[in-house]
């Protein structure tokens, strides 16, 4: 039951009327942000690793693509391949425009969904939108959704699916919501494993009072989840990841697969618990990253890396803000008398927990991108209620909260610029990879002798090296502080 307790939800403050101008300003800011980010995204050519190899597989027929994906035992990601195949065929050879354009459209859709979920209505909300969007784009878990593509970024697809699920769940009930919810779950879950989070959002959304999806649809989603596990484990025999597949951060060092097997092969539970806990901490505090306590190590060596320090200050200050909100709302939460902002914050906690659990086999920032996205929603909701600070009679009590606002805002503005710097560096690195692509092909033992493969290689290399303007190289001082 969602109620609106008096004086608690400042998102509907009677002191300030709803303003179309404020809504327009919020969306305009979002559009400007997308324009800037889109420009940086378009500067990155289609990648060599993870993209070219995948695109080589797309030249087979639709039928072979479908059969191939439902009969292999490594992963259960058939809809990822069907998305890739669809864009590949639609592009008709204009690969760069279609694949990179899709990435920009995904970012635009994400920002639009974010604004839809936070519902900026008043000028006070509009003033907080830059902070919310800076947390969304600047969170370190988000960077992996834009820096790479395969050549469509599946993590971005899942993030979009999670936001769309929240919008459906917390929105008004319409009769097409139920089939949309089931479709969304199917697409997300069959695109990449973390897509299973969509069902967590529907269930958590219903628990916090969302009535956008019916109980019947929730039951159908539950059956869908059972069906997914049956398909994965009983029918297709696609198991879970094992310890010897990849290196993983642990404490202050990176453990190679052989080390992992040696240390945890007999009893992997402590390693899995470590991954779950550090994944959650990473979203809340920006440290550790991918299981590694790099900033802490930097401090112990007397040389903390500036960009990591900024990330930790940004995440921690936002987490403190959320903690303050939770403390103030504890009485209402005990009564389960939840406002829209409470719902967003509680949804974040649910997504954080589930996302961390899904990361049990290995931890990586981008896998936590759904939790990072909901972190941005929760930070906005908390800020709307906790900020601005109430005036105080003492100087210190008046100035300290404003100083905290300044730290929060400056840290996230640095993070926002930092993500753009990461994209800049990626644009240069991808071009360099294309220059040396023949060496890479030899190392990977790829067969590009077929005419279609040769044409694809030529087209992508020309796109990367000739069609797009050359990326300039950032000075080290700029990179050091921002990336």
């Amino acid at each position, binding site marked *: 039951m969602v109620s609106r307790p008096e004086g608690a939800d400042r998102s509907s403050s009677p002191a300030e009327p709803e303003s179309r101008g404020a809504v327009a300003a919020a969306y305009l*800011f979002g559009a400007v942000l997308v324009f800037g980010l889109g420009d940086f995204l378009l500067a990155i050519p289609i990648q060599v690793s993870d993209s070219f190899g995948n695109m080589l597989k797309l030249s087979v027929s639709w039928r072979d693509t479908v059969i191939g994906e439902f009969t292999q035992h490594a992963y259960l990601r058939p809809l990822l391949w069907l998305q890739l195949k669809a864009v590949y065929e639609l592009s008709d050879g204009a690969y760069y425009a279609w694949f990179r354009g899709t990435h920009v459209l995904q970012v635009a859709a994400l920002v639009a969904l974010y604004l839809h979920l936070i519902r900026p209505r008043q000028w006070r909300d509009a003033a907080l939108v830059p902070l919310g969007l800076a947390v969304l784009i600047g969170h370190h878990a988000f960077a992996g959704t834009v820096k790479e593509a395969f050549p469509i970024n599946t993590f971005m697809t899942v993030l979009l699916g999670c936001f769309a699920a929240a919008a459906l769940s917390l929105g008004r009930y319409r009769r097409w919501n139920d089939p949309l919810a089931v479709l969304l779950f199917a697409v997300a879950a069959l695109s990449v494993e973390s897509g299973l989070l969509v069902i967590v959002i529907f269930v958590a959304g219903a628990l916090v009072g969302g009535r956008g999806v019916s109980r019947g649809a929730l039951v159908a989603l539950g059956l869908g989840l059972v069906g997914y596990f049956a398909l994965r484990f009983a029918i297709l025999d696609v198991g879970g990841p094992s310890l010897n597949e990849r290196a993983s951060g642990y404490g202050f060092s990176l453990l190679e697969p052989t080390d992992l097997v040696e240390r945890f092969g007999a009893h992997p539970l402590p390693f899995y618990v470590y991954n779950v806990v550090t994944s959650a901490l990473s979203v809340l505090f920006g440290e550790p990253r991918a299981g590694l306590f790099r900033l802490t190590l930097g401090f112990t060596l007397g040389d903390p890396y500036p960009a990591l320090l900024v990330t930790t200050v940004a995440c921690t200050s936002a987490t403190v803000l959320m903690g303050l909100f939770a403390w103030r709302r504890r009485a209402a939460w005990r009564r389960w008398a939840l406002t829209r902002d409470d719902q967003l914050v509680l949804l974040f906690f649910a997504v954080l927990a589930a996302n961390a659990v899904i990361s049990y086999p290995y931890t990586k920032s981008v896998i936590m991108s759904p939790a990072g996205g909901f972190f941005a929603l929760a930070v906005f909701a908390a800020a709307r209620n906790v900020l601005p600070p109430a005036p105080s009679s003492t100087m210190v009590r008046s100035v300290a909260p404003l100083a905290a606002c300044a730290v929060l805002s400056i840290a996230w503005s640095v993070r926002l610029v930092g993500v*753009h710097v990461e994209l800049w560096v990626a644009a240069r690195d991808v071009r360099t990879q294309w220059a040396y692509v023949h060496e890479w092909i030899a190392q990977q033992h790829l067969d590009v002798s077929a005419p279609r493969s040769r044409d694809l290689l030529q087209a992508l290399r020309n796109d990367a090296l000739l069609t797009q303007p050359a990326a300039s190289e950032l*000075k080290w001082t700029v990179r050091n502080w921002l990336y």
Partner: protein
Amino acid sequence: MRATSRIASYILAVPIVTAVVVILVVIVFDRTGLGWWSHDAPRNIAEAAAMGRAAEVVRFLRFGDDPTRILPVRPQIAFPSTTYLTAFEGAVWSRSVQLLRLLEEEGLPLDDAMRGRLACLAVDLERANVAAYLAPAGEIRCEAGAAASEVTARTAAAENDH
């Protein structure tokens, strides 16, 4: 209350809005080559090779540049003053065997004479990895400093011409 609220709103919004404006300014300035935050783009294939910028080397090659042509390389890219180098010599300067291989594959295969001269330059410039690549058998007969002097003399001659 209203004043505090307004100040807090400004404090929260202004740095991030400024960051977005900075990003837009960077987009505009980088297109015009005026950004202090990045190194200058290479102006020719020799500069690209001396900077170790493989993507730009391929770009210049595809637009018809000759990797054996002697071209001016601006101060601080290789030497303190303007130097006149070929793309192959630039690659030796940047210590990149990978780039030399790329130049051979995409530009021009090195003959024995060129390979020998470049190996001597690598020895003079103390690029041991490059010298080992250019003369894998280890038989490099060089007059110490002669290859580097040739580059210096070429530069001096060009300056006199100016």
